[in-house]
């Protein structure tokens, strides 16, 4: 049925898409021969194919726009003030990225294991897993001295990185050509 409607030519969008595929040289052999058959037997398909083919030729003949005559000169004058930045791979250490990834995954797994470890799986009062999850005592975990120390170290590291980031920005701004 669907195939019938596809072949009848009533579905204009489908017809266009299939004809564009055909014009672009895409589609498998059975699809291409089905379209060739339609082009021979169906006047609507034939006429639409002719239109799309002409449009395709027109688009291929489309001219490029040209910028001002001084374009290359303007670019080269500006480029004199710039330097090629070092390749990203030269200053991004993959080991650091991996280290950070492993750290956060370990942290996540740690939280998960700790949380699930608190659930009393033998308790039948709440059958729902969601209910059991809400019973996890998060306060107990976050009031732990070691966790607080860990959090404090993270905050200090964060501030240190932020300061580093801003001082780099300041340096870059000073070195930026005007």
């Amino acid at each position, binding site marked *: 049925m669907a195939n019938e409607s596809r072949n009848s030519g009533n579905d204009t969008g489908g017809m266009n898409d299939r004809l564009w595929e055909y014009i672009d040289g895409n589609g498998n052999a059975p699809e291409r021969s089905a379209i060739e058959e339609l082009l021979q037997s169906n006047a609507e398909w034939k006429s639409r194919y002719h239109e799309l083919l002409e449009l395709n030729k027109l688009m291929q003949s*489309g001219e490029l726009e040209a910028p001002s005559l001084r374009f290359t000169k303007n670019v080269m004058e500006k480029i004199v003030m710039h330097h090629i930045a070092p390749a990203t791979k030269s200053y991004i250490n993959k080991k650091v990225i991996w280290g950070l990834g492993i750290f956060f995954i370990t942290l996540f797994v740690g939280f998960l294991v700790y949380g699930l470890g608190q659930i009393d799986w033998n308790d039948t009062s709440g059958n729902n897993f969601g209910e059991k999850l809400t019973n996890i005592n998060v306060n107990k975990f976050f009031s732990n001295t070691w966790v607080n120390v860990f959090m404090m170290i993270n905050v200090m590291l964060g501030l240190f990185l932020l300061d580093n980031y801003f001082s780099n920005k300041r340096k870059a701004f000073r070195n930026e050509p005007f």
Partner: protein
Amino acid sequence: MSTGQSDNEIISLVLHGNQQAYAGLVDRYQNYVFTLALRITKNREDAEEVAQDSFIKAYRALADFRGGSKFSTWLYTIVNNTGITFLRKKKLDIQSLDNESVFAMANNRDSGVNADIVEQKSRQSMVNKAIALLAPDDAEVITLFYQAEQSLEEIAGILGIETNTAKVRLHRARTRLKEKMEKHFAQEVKEIYQ
């Protein structure tokens, strides 16, 4: 200077300190980059700015070009990103420019040369005017496919989308272009179809 050299040869020269060799790449790609920028910004002045910025960004990031793709594909990705950032900054309305004033503007741009223009030239100009009437997304994908001769896979890479999405966008853009041409250049299109 650098005529006849491949893109990779010029890039190698530039990376080894011959800054002036970069002019070869600018000369080679300026029309492509400018056309693409124009499709995005819809304004020649803005397009010139985006095209210049794109070449400067490409120069600064040249060490990151590893030759895994064509230089043109890499460059067009930069143009696309620079164009989008530019539009965001200018907060331009990037809706379809399907209105009579814009159409008149597009028409006026070439006024005065219509009388004695050769047929081929006139058709090319008609296509460009019709493309200028499309929304930036549609105009960009058509320019990349037909004028910059990028494959669907390359277009997908430039626009950061899936290849199938690029194919659907191209089909949709061509259909819209056909509609624009039939609406605004009815007589010419009729002659072409005959």
